[in-house]
């Protein structure tokens, strides 16, 4: 199942870059990756504050 998933995903993803047919399906936009990266960075940076705040809450 993993092999088939990777194979089909690879075909759909890479063939889309060379397919000249205008009736292609929409690609994923990159906002999801920006959200993941930005959110992770923000979470790591704000961790000390969250840590202290959470400990004060449970007190």
């Amino acid at each position, binding site marked *: 199942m993993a092999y088939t998933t990777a194979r089909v995903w690879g075909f759909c993803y890479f063939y889309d870059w060379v397919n000249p047919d205008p009736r292609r399906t929409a690609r994923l936009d990159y906002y*999801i990756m920006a*959200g993941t990266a930005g*959110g992770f960075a923000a*979470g790591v940076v704000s961790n000390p504050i969250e840590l202290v*705040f959470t400990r004060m809450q449970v*007190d």
Partner: protein
Amino acid sequence: MLPEGYKRNYKGILDGLMKVVDEGVLMRGAAANGAKLAAICASMTNAFDWCKENSYFYLGPSWINRFWATGVAATIGTAVSLPFDAIRMRMHTMRPLPDGRLPYQNSFDCLVKMNHYEGAAKHSSNLNCFFAGGQAYWVRLFGICWVSQYILDYYHGGKNVSEFWSPAKHKVQTGIDYDVHEPFTDGFNQFMNSKWSV
């Protein structure tokens, strides 16, 4: 709530930060906290936008669009981020066991141990261990998203905002998405607003 010997008794954020630095655990649970925020940022806006735009097709400029889209987004945000929040909470508040060792080595270890000891049917439990307090979490998330959209509306309706955001000045609903509104649609929106806005 905790017995006196268990309290950390931080006097404030600064005092707490200094004590945490002394303890050497400033970045404990950072991976889980990062994963939690990343999950929220990467999941909620997409669902919100999809729901809002699809119901807009049927309802026009109704408050229902924003309401149900925010509800769906909060549900998805809760589903994907609460497991990481549960891990973060345990990492942030854990105390040494009687033998002096810490219960969890890192965020991933916490995830594995929660899944093994609390999330297994063998121990009469299930993956709900990752979703404890989910209802309150949902209400909080929904409230934050709901209120912040009206604050954004207020801000976008002001004078110091660029022309890009002008649809907000004509009561066309904006949200946390960045759609470009083209003139014909905006004109139609204004017409619908003037006639049937509810």
